[in-house]
């Protein structure tokens, strides 16, 4: 069974559209994250949630809105997509916020904005 899953795996869309990416973890972890990896492979954290509560919001444009309906899910909605949003988005989870030990990454969602 996949520990951290993301859908969709690939997303190609037009500039100005709104899209969502979903993430689910079956590890029983309390903390979930969204990372953005650009074309230069730089991994940058966007958001972190602990037990459904927002812990980190790394000056991400407010076009990006995360939502955590329960601690096993963390979805990412993006409004008015821009060319610069093209990247790979990784969801990850860890046991809890205080320890922040091993982070388990999902397979990634490759977003291309045309």
């Amino acid at each position: 069974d996949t520990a951290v899953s993301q859908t969709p795996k690939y997303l190609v869309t037009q500039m100005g559209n709104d899209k969502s990416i979903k993430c689910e973890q079956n590890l029983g972890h309390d903390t979930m994250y969204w990372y953005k990896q650009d074309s230069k492979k730089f991994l940058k954290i966007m958001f972190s949630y602990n037990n459904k509560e927002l812990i980190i919001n790394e000056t991400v444009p407010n076009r990006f809105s995360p939502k955590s309906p329960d601690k096993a899910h963390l979805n990412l909605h993006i409004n008015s997509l821009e060319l610069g949003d093209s990247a790979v988005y990784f969801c990850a989870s860890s046991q809890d916020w205080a320890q922040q030990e091993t982070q388990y990454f999902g397979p990634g969602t490759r977003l291309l904005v045309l």
Partner: protein
Amino acid sequence: GQQVMQIPQYQHVQEGEDFTTYCNSSTTLSNIQWYKQRPGGHPVFLIQLVKSGEVKKQKRLTFQFGEAKKNSSLHITATQTTDVGTYFCAGLRGAQKLVFGQGTRLTINP
């Protein structure tokens, strides 16, 4: 803010040669983690170092955490084609976010 610098950015070696990537932080870290990302894949946890001066080994991989807990290195002995990928260090300071280095992309000539 907390910076984690990783060098080199790219490294190309002949199969069988050794490889080392270095990670430096501007602040003292509570722990440092290493991840490997295969081409087209996602980051996968390799190891975590917590103690000052700690050295850990995983087969041909040797991880070190500096005495001041500001730097770390990953050394691979006798590289194999399966070692290809990008290696990331990630530093944690206190109860704050994990900050990833820029990664070192390793390519290997068989």
